[in-house]
C-alpha cells in the first residue's frame, strides 16, 4: 500500500476503535498499540517529507471528489514539517509515559492512551486538511480530548481546569463555526484554496468580521492574550505527558490555524501588525506572570504562552526570514518545552507540596532528570550552544532587517525576565539543601530515553543548526507562496500515487 496523508488519520482511528477490543486479548496491548501507531506516524512523516521536498506539494482527495468539492488533505513543506515534528514528539511522549502510568494508578488508562493518541491525530488533522470545516472538526477532536485529559487526574483540580478550558474552548469553536458560516455565504465554498482565490469578492467589512472571528477562535487555541485564561490551569493540572503534548503539539496546531488563516486565506492589511501587537502583549504579560509562580508546571505554562507570543511576533514581521525564524522557534519550543514538562512533572511529583520551594536539592536524588531540566532551561532562555539561541537570533535578525529596534529590545528584556525565573528553579534544584526526605519516584528507563532524545536533539541542533534550516527555509518559502498553493489545489488535483 502506498503511503498517503490519509494514513495519518485512519491508522490512529482504527487503533482507537480497536483498542477496547484488543485490550480484551492482552492487558499490555492497549499500552503498546498507541506507540506503534505513533511510530507509524513517524514513518509516514519521513516518507512524505522526503517526497514533498522533491515535489513541492502532496495532495490527497477524499472519496474521489476533486479539490474544491471534496475534502482534500494537503501536505506542503510547511505543514509536512510541523506534522513530522508532531509525529516524533507524539512518539516520544508515548515513550515517556509508557510505563509511567503503570506505577501511578489514577484513572482509566485505556481511555488515556486513546485520547492522547487521538489528540495528536486531531492536531495533525488540523494541519494537513485543506478544508476549513474539516479543520473545525479536527479542532473539536483536539478540544474534547484536551479537556478530558486535563481533568484526567482525580486528585487534583483537574476538573476545574478542564471546565475552564471547555468553557473558553467552546467559545473558540463557536467563533470558528460562525466565521465559517459567514465565509460560506460569501464565497460558497469550504475549500481553503478556493476561499483564498475568491477572497477578493468579499466586502471589506464582512471580511474584517470574519477575520476577527477566526482570530478569536484560533487565538484561544494559540493562547493569545487575553484569551489564554484557560492555559495555565490546564497545563498545570493535566498529567505530565499531556502538558508536554499541549505545549509541543496542541498549541502548534492552534498557531498553525491562525497562521494559515492569516497567510493563506485573507488578503487583508493590518493583520500582520495585529499579530505583532498581540504577540508582544501576550509575551510580556505571560512572562511577567511566570516570575512569581510557585507551581513549576504553571510557570512552564506561562513561559509557553510567552513563547507563543514570540512566535506570533515573528510571523507578524512577515518576511521570509521572519517566517523561517518563527518556524524554527516553533520547532525549538516544541522540543524544549516538552522536555521541560516531562522533567518538570517528575520533579513536581517528587516534591513534597508540589511547589518550586520544595524541590530544594532534589538534583542529588534525581541527577539525570535535573540535568535534563537544566538543559531545557538553558535552551529555552536562548543560551548558546543550545538550539533556542538560534531561533531567537533569527527572529532578532529578521526584526533588525525591518528596523524594529524597539521590538528587539522588548524581546530581549523579556528574555531577561525569563532567565530570572528559569535560573531560579535551576539553582534551587542544584544548590539548596534538601530539607525533606521523601520517597523518590524514579523515572523508568523508557522515560529517560525519551527525555534524553529530546535533550540530545536540543544540543545537536544547537551546535549544528544546518541540520534543519534547509527544511525550514523551504517551508517558509512555501507558506508565503500563496498563489502556487491555490494553483496546485485547484488545477493540479491529480492524485499522487
Amino acid at each position, binding site marked *: 500500500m502506498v503511503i498517503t496523508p*490519509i494514513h495519518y*488519520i485512519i491508522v490512529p482511528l482504527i487503533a482507537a476503535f480497536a483498542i477496547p477490543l484488543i485490550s480484551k486479548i492482552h492487558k499490555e496491548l492497549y499500552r503498546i498499540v498507541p506507540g506503534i501507531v505513533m511510530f507509524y506516524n513517524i514513518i509516514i512523516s519521513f516518507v512524505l517529507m522526503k517526497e514533498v521536498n522533491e515535489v513541492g506539494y502532496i495532495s490527497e482527495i477524499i472519496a474521489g471528489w476533486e479539490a474544491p*468539492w471534496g475534502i482534500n488533505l494537503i501536505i506542503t513543506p510547511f505543514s509536512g514539517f510541523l506534522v513530522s515534528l508532531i509525529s516524533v514528539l507524539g512518539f516520544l511522549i508515548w515513550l515517556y509515559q509508557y510505563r509511567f502510568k503503570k506505577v501511578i494508578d489514577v484513572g*482509566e488508562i485505556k481511555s488515556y492512551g486513546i485520547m492522547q493518541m487521538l489528540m495528536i491525530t486531531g492536531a495533525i488533522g488540523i494541519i494537513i486538511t485543506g478544508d476549513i470545516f474539516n479543520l473545525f472538526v479536527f479542532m473539536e477532536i483536539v478540544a474534547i*480530548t484536551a479537556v478530558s485529559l486535563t481533568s484526567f487526574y482525580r486528585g487534583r483540580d483537574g476538573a476545574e481546569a478542564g471546565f475552564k478550558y471547555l468553557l473558553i474552548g467552546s467559545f473558540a469553536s463557536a467563533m470558528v463555526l460562525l466565521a465559517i458560516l459567514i465565509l460560506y455565504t460569501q464565497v460558497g465554498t469550504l*475549500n481553503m484554496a478556493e476561499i483564498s482565490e475568491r477572497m477578493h469578492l468579499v466586502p471589506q*467589512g464582512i471580511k474584517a468580521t470574519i477575520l476577527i472571528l477566526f482570530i478569536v477562535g484560533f487565538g484561544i487555541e494559540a493562547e493569545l492574550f487575553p484569551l489564554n485564561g484557560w492555559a495555565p490551569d490546564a497545563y498545570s493540572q493535566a498529567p505530565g505527558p499531556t502538558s508536554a503534548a499541549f505545549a509541543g503539539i496542541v498549541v502548534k496546531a492552534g498557531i498553525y490555524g491562525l497562521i494559515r488563516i492569516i497567510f493563506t486565506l485573507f488578503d487583508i492589511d493590518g493583520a500582520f501588525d495585529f499579530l505583532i501587537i498581540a504577540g508582544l502583549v501576550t509575551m510580556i504579560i505571560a512572562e511577567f506572570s511566570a516570575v512569581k509562580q510557585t507551581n513549576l508546571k504553571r510557570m512552564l505554562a506561562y513561559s509557553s504562552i510567552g513563547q507563543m507570543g514570540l512566535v506570533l511576533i515573528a510571523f507578524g514581521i512577515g518576511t521570509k526570514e521572519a517566517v523561517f525564524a518563527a518556524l524554527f522557534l516553533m520547532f525549538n519550543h516544541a522540543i524544549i518545552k516538552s522536555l521541560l514538562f516531562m522533567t518538570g512533572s517528575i520533579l513536581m511529583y517528587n516534591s513534597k507540596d508540589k511547589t518550586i520551594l520544595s524541590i530544594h536539592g532534589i538534583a542529588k536524588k534525581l541527577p539525570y532528570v535535573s540535568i535534563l531540566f537544566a538543559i531545557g532551561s538553558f535552551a529555552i532562555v536562548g543560551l548558546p550552544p543550545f538550539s533556542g539561541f538560534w531561533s531567537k537570533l533569527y527572529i532578532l535578525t529578521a526584526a533588525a532587517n525591518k528596523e524594529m529596534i524597539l521590538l528587539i529590545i522588548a524581546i530581549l528584556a523579556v528574555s531577561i525576565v525569563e532567565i530570572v525565573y528559569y535560573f531560579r528553579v535551576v539553582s534551587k534544584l542544584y544548590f539548596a539543601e534538601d530539607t525533606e526526605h521523601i520517597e523518590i519516584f524514579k523515572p523508568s528507563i523508557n522515560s529517560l530515553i525519551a527525555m534524553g532524545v529530546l535533550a540530545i536533539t536540543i544540543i545537536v541542533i544547537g551546535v549544528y543548526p544546518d541540520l534543519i534550516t534547509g527544511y525550514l527555509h523551504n517551508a517558509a518559502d512555501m507558506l508565503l507562496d500563496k498563489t502556487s498553493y491555490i494553483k496546485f489545489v485547484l488545477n493540479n488535483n491529480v492524485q499522487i500515487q
Partner: protein
Amino acid sequence: MKKVLVIILLVIIGYFLAETFINIPFGENRIGDINLEKPTAAGYYLSNTTEKSKVANVITAIVVNYRGLDTLGEVTVLFLATTGIASILYRRKEEEENAETERLSLPSSNIVRSGARVLFPTIALLGIYVFIHGHLTPGGGFQGGTIVATGFLLMLISYKGFNTNHNRMVWIESLAGLSFIFLGIWGLISDNTFLGNIPEVGKLNSLISGGLIPLIYIAVGFKVAVELTGILDILLKIKPKK
C-alpha cells in the same frame, strides 16, 4: 454592575452580527446555476449526486461521501466524548465497591414502566428504520442512532434494574467504528481514494442503492446509538450527594 457591562457588550456584539447578516439576504439563491461548468460547491453536489454518488438524498451524500472525513471526525468526537466522560467520572475499584453505585432512578409508576416496555421496541425500530433509509429520506445514522438512544434512555429512567450490557456495547461500538473505516479503506483499495464509492447495485431511490453510503450510515447509526446510550448510562450512574 457586571450585568450592565455584559449587556452592553452583548448589545455591541448583536449590533455587529446584525450588521453582518443584513448584508446576507435571507432566502437568496447563492448556489447559482447548477449546470455551469464550474458551479459552486452546493451546485456541484446538487448536479452530481444522482449520477455519481447514486443516492437520492443530497445531504446524505454530502455527509457520508463528499465530506465523509467530517463525518468520520464527528463519529470520533462522539467516541471521544464517551471515552472522555468515562475517564472523567472514573472511579477506582475500591471506590466502586465502597460507594453506592446505584443508578439514579426517578420513582416511576407502573404505567410508565409498562408503557416504556411497550414503547421501547417501537422507538428502536423507528430509529433503525431512520438510519437504514438515510440515503432516501431525511434522517440518517445520527438521527436514527439518537432515536434508538432515546429508547434506551426511557428504559434507563423507568427501570431501576435495567442494565446495559457493557461488554456488548463495547463490541458494537468498536465494530461499528471499525467497519466505517474499513468500508472507507475498501474504497481506498478499489478506487484509490479513501471512502471512494463502490459501483452501485440497485436503482436510484431504492433501498439497495448508493454504494457504500447506506452501509456507512448504518455503521454510524449503530455507533451513535451505542455511544449515546453509553453516555447516558455513565451520567445516570452518578449518585447525587445526600
